């Protein structure tokens, strides 16, 4: 991967870390629902899962990701692949994410 491509992927991850889950005060990266980011020219391909198959906020999360990533320079298209394998579990949360939810009153 070229250094330029690497920097752009980092920018995508930083942008994703600005998006909060609509129901809880935790961002998508700390929640561990983004499984992968790949850049192909001006398209970002994202592998995304949800904490539950019946996630009531799935439409909102997808809309938030599109809106935020399309605001990044050099990105014209966001392709989101929703995957269920491997299934999400709370072990995928980062230490910061765990702390944010604990502070909010959820035991994780």
């Amino acid at each position: 991967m070229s250094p330029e491509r690497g920097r752009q992927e980092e920018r995508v991850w930083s942008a994703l870390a600005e998006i909060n889950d609509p129901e809880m005060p935790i961002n998508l990266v700390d929640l561990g629902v983004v499984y992968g980011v790949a850049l192909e020219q001006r398209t970002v391909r994202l592998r995304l899962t949800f904490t539950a198959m019946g996630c009531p906020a799935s439409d909102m999360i997808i809309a938030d990701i599109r809106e935020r990533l399309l605001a990044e320079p050099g990105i014209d298209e966001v392709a989101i692949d929703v995957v269920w394998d491997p299934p999400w579990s709370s072990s995928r949360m980062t230490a910061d994410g765990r702390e944010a939810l604990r502070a909010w009153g959820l035991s994780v």
Partner: protein
Amino acid sequence: MESSNSAAFEGLIKRGELIESVSEMTPDYLRELKHTLIVSGDTELISAPAYYLAARKAPSVNAFMTGIAIIQDELAHAHIAYHILEELGESQEALIFKRDPKAFRYPYAFDVPLESWTELVVANAMYDQAGFCLLGDIHEQCSYGPWKRGLVKVMAEENFHLRNGRNWSKRISQAGGAAKEELQRAVDWMFPLTVEWFGLPDNLKQHSAQLDYRLKGLTNDQLRQQWLSTVVPFMTSIGIQVPAHQENSHYVLDYPFPSTFDAEAKRWDFNDPCSWIDVLARWRARGPRNAEMVALFQESFSKFQVQQ
């Protein structure tokens, strides 16, 4: 002795201290707190059947899941209020399942049926915004500690409902044509009903025990202004008209307040102003679907009671 105790209690409230248990309360405070909790619990509870009847018209499985999740939240919020009431000596069972429909204390708006997905999302954008203003005020100001703390998660969830309302309202408006016209019609009847939700104007309500006891912090008109200051700019921004506008730092209604409402036709007659006495009479008589909404959660209760 009685009066010095009550003066000491009022001093506590004025100093901004939190009340934590019944043993600290005066009988008057306890009565006002219970009344405020009943209105809050009833409002959350009735929104579940009201939203459910409309959520069935969801345009996709994902949208239906969101609608059902909102209903689950509302039931949980109701549970917080009734649970506290139980700790204050009331029976949850009696409050929820044994009261006459007309004895419920939720806003009149919920007695007018929501009959489409469009009407549901407008309710999320306007009714839940009203709930957000009222509960946000209680969360910030309430002198009763257990309730104040219980509202932290409620506020986050109400925000989710509001987003659903706003996202969908925007999407329907952008679709244009008949969809946008339906949205405008929903706003036309629901907007004045929500304005009314905040109750009598301050100039007619000389005294509020809820404010004296810091059960809430803002007056009816202050809360109404707060609501208008979010709903009017939002609706205008998505190309939907509302009968109110901004003048300097506050919002002014473009119709006589209060006015006459035909609940069956879901139509306001702004050429027919009425008095607050008429409005209070309409509220007391309840709206067209009061009994049906309450029956949705009461009807099966007696079937499953173990005979003593």
